[in-house]
C-alpha cells in the first residue's frame, strides 16, 4: 500500500493545487487520461465543498488522505467546518445550500458519477469527511 497525506488552508486557489497533487500521486498507476480526469474532478468537487460549504469561506484546514491498494485508489477529503445537517438532501442533484453563489448543486452527483464509491460522514459543528474509491 502506498499512501500520502496533504493538509492546506481553505483558500480557493488551493483547489488546483489539491487536484494536481493527488493526480501526481496516483499517476504511478497505469490509467487512462479519462480516469485521471475523473479523479481530479472528484477531488476538486470535494475540496470546493469544504471551502464553500464546510468553512463558508472562513479560514480552516482541509486534509486529503490518499492511498493506493493494488489498482484501487482511495481518497478521503475532510474538514473541520460546520458540517452537513441533512446529508441525503445535500447529495440530491441540483440542491445547493448557497444558491446565491450560483452553485450548480451538482458536486456530490459529479463525485458519484466519476468515482465507484462515495460515502459521506458529517456532524454539524464538527466537520465533514468524504471518502471516495475508484478501481482502475
Amino acid at each position, binding site marked *: 500500500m502506498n499512501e500520502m497525506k496533504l493538509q492546506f488552508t481553505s483558500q480557493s486557489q488551493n483547489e*488546483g493545487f489539491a487536484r494536481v497533487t493527488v493526480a501526481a500521486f496516483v499517476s504511478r498507476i497505469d490509467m487512462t487520461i479519462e480516469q485521471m480526469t475523473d479523479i481530479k474532478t472528484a477531488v476538486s*468537487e470535494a475540496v*470546493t465543498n469544504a471551502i464553500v460549504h464546510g468553512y463558508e469561506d472562513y479560514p480552516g484546514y482541509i486534509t486529503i488522505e490518499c492511498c493506493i491498494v493494488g489498482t484501487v485508489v482511495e481518497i478521503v477529503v475532510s474538514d473541520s467546518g460546520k458540517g452537513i445537517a441533512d446529508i441525503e438532501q445535500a447529495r440530491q442533484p*441540483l440542491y445547493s445550500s448557497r444558491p446565491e453563489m450560483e452553485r450548480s448543486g451538482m458536486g456530490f452527483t*459529479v463525485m458519484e458519477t466519476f468515482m465507484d464509491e462515495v460515502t459521506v460522514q458529517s456532524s454539524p459543528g464538527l466537520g465533514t469527511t468524504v471518502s471516495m474509491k475508484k478501481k482502475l
Partner: protein
Amino acid sequence: MKTTLEFCDHVLVVRLHGDLDHHLAQHVREQIDSAAATGSIRKIVFDFRQVSFMDSSGLGVLMGRHRLMEAVGGSVALFGVTPRMDKLLTMSGVKTIIAVYETQEQALEKGAAQ
C-alpha cells in the same frame, strides 16, 4: 484562467483558457456579466477549446449565463468541449438548456441571436 471577450453584433464570444473551477469562476462570471450589462447582448457563445479542466463550478457559470440570456429572450451556446466535459454537461442536464456544438461556425450560425 484567461478570458477573452469578443463582440459581434448582439453576440458575445467568450474564449476561456485554462482551468474553470470555483476559484476562477467568479472572475469569469464578473467579466461576462459586466459585458452583458450593456443590454445589447442576445447570445453568448463559449469557446472551450483551450479549457484544460472544468468541474461543477463551471456548470454553475453556464447555468447562470443561461438564466441571464433567457431573461432577455436570448440564448447561450458553446463549442470545443472534451469528451469528459461533455459527460459533465450531459449528466447535469445542462445540454438540455444550452446547445453544444463541435465548431465555432456551428455555434454562431445555428440558433442565431433571437
